[in-house]
Every structure is written in C-alpha cells, then in structure tokens.
C-alpha cells in the first residue's frame, strides 16, 4: 500500500541555517502528531509536504506524487499554515468562498462548501464581518476552515491548536498535525513523530516513547511547610532515587524512576499523614525536558 506521505533523504536549509536534515519517513493512514520544540524543523517539513518549499536534497511525495509545482494535488490536500495571516479587507465568507471557487466549485456548490466549512469551525454567525474585525482565535478557526472546505483526503495542520475548538470533530481520513505542546497532541493521537534539530528523533506510539521517558528520573517538586517530615516518610522507597531540599526550607524535589508508582504512593501518604502541601509540580514534565533527557543534555 502506498504511504500517504513518503520522505526520502529529505534535507532543507536556508543559507547557513539548517531546516531539516536527511529525513526518511513514511506516514500511513490515520492521525499523526509531529512533535518538536520551536526550531526543530516541523514547519519546514510541513511546508515541503504542502508544496510551499522545495527540498534541497532528497524527495517527498504525497499519495505517490511530488508536491512542489503540482497544483492538481491540492484537490486532495488541505494545509493550515502557522502564520496569523488573512485577507483582512475581505469578509470571512468572502475569503472562504474565494478559496472554494479556486478549488473548482461553482455557484451553489461553492456556497454550500463555504457554509459547511464555516459552520464546522463555528464562524457562521460572524461570516459577513470583515476579517480585520476578527479575534485571534476566530482568524485561527478561519484558517482551519480554509484547509478543510474541499474535504481533503490529507489534512496538514501547522501549530493549529491555540484558541481553537477540538479538532477531532473534523472527519478527515489522514491528518498530520504539528505542535510543540505534548498534551495537545496526546489528546488527538497516539502516533507521533518527534523532530529535533532537523532530524527524526523518535517515531511511533506515544506510550512507547513515554516508557522511554520513564526510564529517566522524573522530578517532582512539592511545596510544603514540613519538607523534612515528608522526606522522612518518602526516603527508603525503591522508586525514589534522590531528594533535594529547597533553599527556602519550604519544599523538596524528589527524583523518581517510576512516576506513576511514586504519585500513587505520595497521594496515599499525604492522605494518611495529613502533611500539609501547597503545590505539586513536575518541572521536567514538558516536551523540552523530555528532549533534553533523550538527547542526553
């Protein structure tokens, strides 16, 4: 079966700045999350996949065809760009209707497609207003409408999640969505591709990657007026590899290799002992920290 998207030895750079380097990747049906910190190369990859940029080296095909300079393929592809851009002198409806017509729909059919797309993103009520009067979130949703109006087989969304209603209401066969926010991707799909410094860093099921993360110590910070009392009750457990006290004597940071087990134990301990706590945070529970662990920083 032909993959939806296939990249072979794909590289792109801008002058001396590396975009992506030697990427080999096949994406098949379903929802795929493209994850990576800012500057990792996600947008470059998606822009090549959407025919906006030319690969410097290697090749990328969508549905078996090269994308750059192949406008016919855009009947099957929808692309939602990351930029907050729009034709501000047009109304929301005028903008979507223009794109519907450019997609080849005419008359009533174009109007129906535009209306359906605007309804999907909840902009029907404000469709006749000029875009310059739209809020950031509304413009974001309008961009989304522009990418789904022709009901593409493959939808590519570049950082689309800020200020937008949940996307999984949209019925799309294939979806590639990029983000640097792990929980947002996690809510949509288990299948992810991690990009870092222009290279594919990990690919596969999110739980497997999480397990990889669990093999590294997690940090859990607990703000409490009784840090020594709490530490005394925690120390000695196998899953705790270290405890560090805060310099203001009002908290401690615990390092654990088994976060789930630690949290279960902590919750029951707090309930039993009645040790007062003000805040529990995970300072390394973000994608950047995960990357830092994986790349050995």
């Amino acid at each position, binding site marked *: 079966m032909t993959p939806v998207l296939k990249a072979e030895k794909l590289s792109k750079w*801008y002058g001396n700045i590396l*975009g992506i380097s030697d990427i080999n990747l096949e994406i098949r049906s379903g929802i795929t999350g493209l994850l990576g910190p*800012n*500057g*990792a*190369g*996600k*947008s*470059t990859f998606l*822009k090549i996949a*959407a*025919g*906006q*940029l*030319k690969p410097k080296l290697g090749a990328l095909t969508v549905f078996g065809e090269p994308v750059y*300079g192949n*406008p*016919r*393929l*855009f*009947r099957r*592809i*929808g*692309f939602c*760009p990351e*930029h907050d*851009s*729009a*034709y*501000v*002198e*047009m109304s929301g409806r*005028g903008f979507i209707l*223009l*794109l519907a*017509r*450019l*997609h*080849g729909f005419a008359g009533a059919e174009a109007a129906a497609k535009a209306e359906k797309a605007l309804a999907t993103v909840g902009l029907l009520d404000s469709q006749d207003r000029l875009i310059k009067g739209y809020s950031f979130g509304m413009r974001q949703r309008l961009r989304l409408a*522009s*990418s789904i109006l022709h009901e593409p087989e493959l939808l590519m969304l570049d950082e689309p999640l800020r200020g937008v209603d949940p996307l999984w209401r949209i019925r799309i066969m294939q979806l590639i969505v990029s983000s640097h926010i792990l929980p947002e991707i996690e809510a949509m799909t288990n299948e992810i591709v991690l990009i870092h410094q222009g290279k594919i860093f990990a690919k596969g099921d999110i739980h497997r990657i999480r397990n990889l993360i669990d093999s590294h110590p997690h940090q859990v910070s607990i703000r409490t007026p009784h840090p020594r009392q709490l530490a005394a009750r925690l120390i000695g457990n196998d899953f705790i590899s270290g405890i560090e006290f805060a310099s203001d004597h009002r908290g401690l940071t615990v390092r654990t290799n088994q976060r789930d087990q630690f949290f279960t134990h902590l919750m029951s301990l707090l309930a039993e002992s009645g040790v007062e706590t003000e805040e529990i945070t995970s300072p390394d529970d973000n994608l950047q920290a995960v990357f830092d662990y994986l790349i050995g920083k």
Partner: protein
Amino acid sequence: MTMKAKRPIRILFRSFFSSGLRAKRTRVFILLALVPVLLMLAARIMEGVGSASASDVAGFFGHFMLSLYFQLLIPVLALFFGTSIVNEELDNKTLVYLTTVPVPRRAVLLGKYLAALLLAALLIVAGFLLCFLAASFTRLGDAAAWEELGLFLGTSLLALFCYSALFTALGAFMKKSILLGLFFVFGWESVVQYFPGVTQKFTIIHWIKSLLPIPPGQNSFLSFQLQPSPPLQSVLTLLAAGLLFLYIAVFIFERKEYILSDNA
C-alpha cells in the same frame, strides 16, 4: 491560455478588484489622482480672475499636466500596484492560500495583475478625464479635442500596461522592489530619456512621448531632446515590452520559492 487557467484568472480578478476598491491604499491613490484635477481647476480660476490667459492655461495642460501624468502619476501608480501583486502576499503571509489551491501559479499572477491594472486604469482615466474637461470645456464641441482625449487615454492605458507589467516582474523577483522601482522611475526614466540618439529608446517614456502630440514651446517635456519614433512602432513596442515583462513575471513567479517567515 488554457480553459483551466481562464476560470481561476476570472475568479481572482473579480475578488482582488473588489477588495482592492475597498483597500485603504486605493483611497490614498484616489486623492493622489485628484491632485492634477485640483491644479487644473486652480489654473481655470486664475484665468477667470484674469491672473492667467487662456493660452497660459492651454500651455499648462500641454506641458505640466502631461508631464505630471506620464512621468509621475502613471509610473508611480503602476509601481505601487504592480509590485504589491506579489510583495503584499509576502508581507501579509497570505501567499500560502493562493499556492495551496489546485490553480496554476500563472493564473494567480495574471488574475491579480488584471485586477491591479484595472484599478490603476480607473484612477488614471477618471482623473485624466476630469482634468481634460477642466482644461478644454470651452472646446467640447470640437471633434479634435475629443480625438486628443482619445489619444491621451489610449496612451495612458498603454503606459500603465507596460509599467505595471515591468513592476509586477520586479515584485515577483525581489521583496523590497519599491526602492529599485523608484530608482527606475526617477533615475533611469528621468535621465536616459534625454540622451540623444538611440539611447533614449531604452526607456519606456520615450515610446510614450512618441505617441503624444508635441505642443509648441522649446522646454516642453515632450519635445526636449526627443527624437520621436513612429506611432505604430511605439504602440507595438509598448505592447511587446508589456507582454515580455508579463511573461518574465509569470516565469519568475512559477519557479521562485517564496519563504514566508523564519522557518522552524
């Protein structure tokens, strides 16, 4: 042009002409296009109160107003409208919407070019018409006056077509094209047109001036150092140059990779 490209050209032309009419920039250009009309009315008022003679006013139109239109307003409007066709899409990062639809890039450029050309033409024709009426209202029954008007308007449209195509190509080629365009209008065109011999033929204004009637007077912008080319040759040259510039614009736009921002 294939049927496949004609429909999107029509769609883009209508859409961008309609949004162009509402754009702030167009309002500014309307004011700019009214400046010569106000100047012409002022000249008429001066004639009315006896501060200027009828021949002074006719000379004012023949020398100053034609110079204002053909050496300033038309190239400047063409510069702003022409370069904005691609540059505006890059500045506003909206190009992505037009390059992710199943439409050839040449249709995008040509649709937008025609919309910009019509907007600029409306501004010039309306301003020129008002100006001409203010200058010639005493000879409106004279067929020669209307012939003259037809010649001015036809030449204006040819000039707009050619300049707009040139600046569309410039805008497609480079992002900060306004500065180079201004250098072309106020440097190259303003200076080289006065070079003797064949050199002046390397300007667009030479071919435009060759189409206009030369009024009496040694210092007219039309006659100074002008060695006019035959009218038919001038028309064909302007048309050919305009088409060539348009072809170059399409060629660049179809092949150039436009990077909309710092890519991550």
